[in-house]
């Protein structure tokens, strides 16, 4: 009994430093955030309002638009990232290491320089007076206001986010595919299997665990998107690029409606949870 207790105490001592941070900055904050969503917080008063904040949100057009935008962001970005990531990785994974390295680094550079830098760069390149529009005009397609036109802004932001994130996906897929036996792939040549068929029917199923991992991490990551929106469009034009996350930010730090912001946060948490749990179940069942 004594030895057991001693081991328990030892373990708790080791865990204590981390646990301290966890309780203070995650557990307590989560609890506080949920609690505050039921209050109206302003300079004068703090009053309990129950579900009022939530009612306000669900009848708020901007919030509903933001929710729609968020779902579009998640669906589109995650989908094209996985499809194109699979395509690129499956095209190069069995090439000479030097080539693979070149590909990995090339696609990863936007990720390394950070979302802030990429957003600024693209803001310049896509400016109506900028380089991309110049070339568009030259080819006779006419200029496009990528970031200022409500029809294009969302897709443009999706594009920028995609370029800044595809690198990680490619690296993960190449790593997963590097374990595939090349002899096995060559063997199917006898049956006249084309490269394309190999990719679809052999390679993609083998890397399924990686796909699930990418799915889970990216869904949450896209929901949390902030930098690209802040620097490219500021949520506009006409809230066409505002997501739930950005709406949280606006409410908390621009409109000063902390209570509503917390409610948005809770809803954001719920959505992230709902979207990722099915993928988790899929991966657990696959084990």
């Amino acid at each position, binding site marked *: 009994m004594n030895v057991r207790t001693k081991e328990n105490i030892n373990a708790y001592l080791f*865990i204590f430093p*981390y646990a301290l*941070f966890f309780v203070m900055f995650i557990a307590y904050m989560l609890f506080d955030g949920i609690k505050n969503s039921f209050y109206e917080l302003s300079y004068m008063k703090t009053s309990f309002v129950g579900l009022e904040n939530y009612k306000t949100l669900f009848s708020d057009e901007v919030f509903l638009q933001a929710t729609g935008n968020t779902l579009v962001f998640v669906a589109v970005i995650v989908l094209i990232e996985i499809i194109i990531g699979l395509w690129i990785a499956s095209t190069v994974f069995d090439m000479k290491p030097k080539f693979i390295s070149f590909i990995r680094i090339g696609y990863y550079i936007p990720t390394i320089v950070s979302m802030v830098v990429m957003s600024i760069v693209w803001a310049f390149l896509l400016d109506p007076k900028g380089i991309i529009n110049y070339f568009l005009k030259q080819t006779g397609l006419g200029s496009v206001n990528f970031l200022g036109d409500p029809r294009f802004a969302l897709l443009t932001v999706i594009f920028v986010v995609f370029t800044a994130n595809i690198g990680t996906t490619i690296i993960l897929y190449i790593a997963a595919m590097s374990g595939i036996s090349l002899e096995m792939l060559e063997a199917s040549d006898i049956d006249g299997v084309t490269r394309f068929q190999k990719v679809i029917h052999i390679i993609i199923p083998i890397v399924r665990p990686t796909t699930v991992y990418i799915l889970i991490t990216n869904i949450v990551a896209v929901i949390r998107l902030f930098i690209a929106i802040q620097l490219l469009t500021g949520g506009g034009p006409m809230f066409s690029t505002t997501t739930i996350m950005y709406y949280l930010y606006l409410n908390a730090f621009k409109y000063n409606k902390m209570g509503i912001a917390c409610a948005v946060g809770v809803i954001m948490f719920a959505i992230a949870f709902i979207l990722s749990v099915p993928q988790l179940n899929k991966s657990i069942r696959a084990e």
Partner: protein
Amino acid sequence: MKNNLFGYRIKRHGIYDAISKILVFTGAVLMTLPIIWLIASSFKHQMEIYQLPPVLFSRRPTLDNLRQLFVDSKALQWLTNSTLVSLFTTIGTIITGTMAAYAFSKLNFYGRKTLFIIFVSSIMIPNEVMIVPLFNLILKLKLQNTITGMALPAIASAIGFFMMKGFIDSISDSMRESAKIDGASEFMIFYRIILPMCKPGIGALFILTFVRSWNNYLWQLLMGTQKSSMTLMVGVSTLFSDIDPNMALKVAGAAIGAVPMLVVFFVFQKYFTRGISMGAVKG
């Protein structure tokens, strides 16, 4: 000879493969172009930035932008702040994470499974959900605009702990068991045996946490309201959003924002690739 090889390649691997490879390679080059443009443009004069037809390299390159960034604006200060904040978070994460990982990996204790699930599931919580109470807390502690305030909350992230647990799991128990028979205390075992063996894992964790902290934009934006206490990313973005129409300065600022991480990546490449397979590096 070369022609034959190419034709043979197509016949062997098919048109899909050939076209895919060409497209993928072209894409890789295109991906780097924006950054090449950025760095080349940081040496341009204001007029040359929006000059049409566009020029990639300046006709008469200038260091004025860089001078302005480091002398007038506070680029050096921002760089220092970013480095200190990231170091603070990284060291804190390594210490707390490795200790906790050791306990979960090698020790048996009451509540082990439950606590593990609680810690790890916190990874799935978007940090922004807690940002309002966190902001108020730091304000109350009067830690805004301080390195501490910017660095502290990030240490609570469970990813470091999760990564190290995975790593320590792979360390064999034999040395630990023989040390126990010799009567060593748990802390001794941790400090003298396990820790030295964790060096590769800690190396990868260091890079990962450092980079993640470096790019922790939203929190640093909220914490850094004074120009002198801003981190590099926040400072650079402030330059960009500034009303001052000096485009060359904004571009040069972004270039300064890009360079440190590029350098870090190329120097520590192997830790990056190891770290990505252990956890995740997110842009």
